[in-house]
């Protein structure tokens, strides 16, 4: 097996990408399904729910986002359950570039990071120069993390070089900001392509690879995440550089969140169970996690009215 990273820094990215090892779809689905059957109880469940909050990118990505909406989300992210200091704050607030200033203002002094999507999110169908400019502006406005999308049009037409160059350029534009590269796996069609995209993004310098924008169905799934985590594992083995993983889109329940943590634990190991290397992108997951934490602690469910909607 060729050393993916070193080889890719040479030329002929296209032919090297076609040489990336394949994924058996049936096998990947089965493995993910069997891990989803793990039964996480009591202390491990509480710990997992706490981690899910700490690793959450609390997200709003709507055309209707306003300063008010973002302010409310920041408040929720910093203190998910008012009056309960044992609940940690989330990892980041994930928003559109135009709302960065609002988030920066409200998160000042907290540990919560500002993550912004960029590069003509969600389609990625724009000029490279604009994508780079958008990234630079976002970082200048105060974003600590950039969630870029790859150019799926280029990827699916086989122009891997273009995708690679763009990620490299955006990474450079990020400066010290962390770069998450969204593959939009729902548009890639096969696990082979997901694996290829993962390795391409990592080789081009991604700090995280991320499943989806949340705007395309299917968004994150367990088997797709498994394939990406396995790609990370292989990449780390060959290069020594750890890369994070972010699942995003359609993760709404604690049960789903725990399934992702189990997958992470059994695929990449305990080293990845930290916000530095794992994120859950979600807009509505948080309250269900809070509700389950209460249930584990007290033995009873509280009504939805005891959890703030922001």
């Amino acid at each position, binding site marked *: 097996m060729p050393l993916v990273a070193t080889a890719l820094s040479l030329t002929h990215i296209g032919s090297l990408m076609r040489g990336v090892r*394949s994924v058996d779809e049936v*096998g990947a689905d089965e493995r993910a399904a069997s891990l989803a059957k793990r039964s996480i109880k009591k202390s491990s469940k509480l*710990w997992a729910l706490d*981690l899910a909050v700490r690793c959450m990118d609390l997200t709003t990505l709507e055309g209707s986002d306003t300063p008010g909406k973002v302010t409310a989300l920041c408040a929720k992210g910093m203190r998910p359950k008012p009056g309960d200091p044992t609940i940690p704050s989330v990892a980041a607030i994930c928003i559109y570039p135009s709302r960065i200033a609002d988030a920066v203002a409200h998160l000042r002094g907290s540990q919560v990071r500002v993550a912004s999507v960029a590069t003509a999110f969600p389609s990625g169908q724009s000029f490279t120069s604009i994508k780079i400019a958008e990234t630079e502006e976002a970082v200048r406005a105060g974003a600590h993390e950039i969630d870029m999308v790859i150019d799926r049009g280029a990827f699916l037409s086989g122009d891997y070089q273009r995708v690679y160059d763009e990620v490299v350029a955006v990474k450079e534009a990020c400066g010290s900001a962390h770069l998450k590269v969204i593959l939009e796996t729902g548009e890639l069609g096969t696990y082979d392509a997901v694996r290829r995209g993962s390795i391409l993004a990592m080789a081009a310098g991604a700090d995280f690879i991320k499943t989806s924008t949340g705007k395309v169905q299917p968004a994150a799934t367990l088997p797709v995440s498994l394939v990406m985590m396995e790609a990370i594992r292989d990449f780390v083995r060959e290069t020594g550089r750890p890369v994070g993983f972010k699942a995003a889109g359609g993760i709404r329940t604690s049960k789903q969140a725990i399934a992702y943590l189990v997958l992470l634990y059994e695929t990449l190991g305990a080293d990845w169970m930290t916000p530095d290397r794992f994120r859950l992108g979600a807009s509505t997951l948080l309250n269900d996690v809070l509700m389950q934490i209460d249930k584990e602690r007290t033995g009873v469910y509280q009504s939805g009215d005891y959890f703030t909607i922001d």
Partner: protein
Amino acid sequence: MAITKRQSAELAKQAFEYAPAPEAIDHVKIQPRYGLFINGRMVEPHSKKHFPTINPATEKKLAEVSEADEVDVDRAVKAAGKAFDSWSHLSPSRRARYLFRISRLIQERARELAVVETMDGGKPIKESRDVDIPLSAAHFFYYAGWADKLEWAFPNRRPRPLGVAGQVIPWNFPLLMLSWKIAPALAAGNTVVLKPAETTPLSAMVFAEICMQAELPPGVVNILTGAGKTGSLVVAHPGVKKVAFTGSTEVGKLIQRTLAGTGKKLTLELGGKAANIVFEDAPLDQAVEGIVNGIYFNQGHVCCAGSRLLVQESIAEPLLEKLKRRLGTLRLGDPLDKNTDIGAINSRAQLDKIQGLVQSGLDEGAELYQPECRLPERGFWFPPTLFTNVSQSYRIAREEIFGPVLSVLTFRTPAEAVEKANNTPYGLSAGVWTDKGSRILWMAERLRAGVVWANTFNRFDPTSPFGGYKESGYGREGGLHGLAAYLDLS
């Protein structure tokens, strides 16, 4: 105070080490003592003898079962012979109805059966729950469908039932093997006398209850518990017209000798030493799962287990690295815990056998790998084990270990892979892992094995025939082939 990444990972590992998630057992009622199921009723054995069956994970006694003697066997075969007259003349659609009913009852009592199977045999609850019990129900369901279509199944052959079938089954998949045997036999219009394995009789006792619940006519199914002696009495009884045996090659040969010249029909499903062959273009992570599933499923107590890994030399190193990492994530322990991947070894005798063969591997010079793994203090346990540096001539590469022990060999070309894979007295199953479709077909043509799995392993379906070449036995179970074994088609 800042903690390092390493420390935080260590904390994460401790915190997430899954809390126990045991399957509830309070809904299961195991009786203290079981009789024999003869002529539709549970009766005391003529022998007056009972023996205990234990939970191999705790070594605690679960129940006592009867030991059937010659008189008991005779009573059971006569009951089955008498029932044959009416059962074989029952309208086929009525026969189908009973089988459908049994299938439904297995599904209804699935949780109970899964727990019983796990407690009596030591297999992880996730396997009995997700594999053994659903497949058992599926077999009855499948053969129920054939019961009134025999003329279509074998056109112009005038299919007729054979009579009383004597069936002896092993301890690795107790209820599933019972279903493989009983479902096609009844669908074809035969009646049966079945002997479950000595160490795992309990799910068959629950099945006897299911037969009563289904109001199956008396004598159609008879279940006799006992040891090897009882089994040999069943197969040797002159009233038995058809013998089906699943178990060791040694016993299979013995049965074949006993039956020579008697005119009884015989099918044997015996041992195996399957090769799981991984080519350099295989999807590696899925191949690793397939290897793990192939040999560590049910603690390796699987006749078609992929106990020899043949890996192309060019990828041996990365594959073994992945495989070793994966072994480290296997969870060994309480079989009733829903997160357990590897349960208890079925019996002390089997554990001794595994230990003996592993020792021979070490003595012959193979290199042993076992992941860090704490074994419970009570019960019979063996950690997942992998041998490298194995030669074809070593005992661990030739003999069936029937435990969680994998022997790794390498090959250079497809031809060499075929040669090594076939170089065994067995021929039950094989696995081929490659991205190249044409190579799968090329291999399948040349591998002398009853089943060849491509990019998967240990996959079963009632519609698919299963059985061996050479010392793995003859005859097929499952599918139409399995039905033919219980019919006179001459």
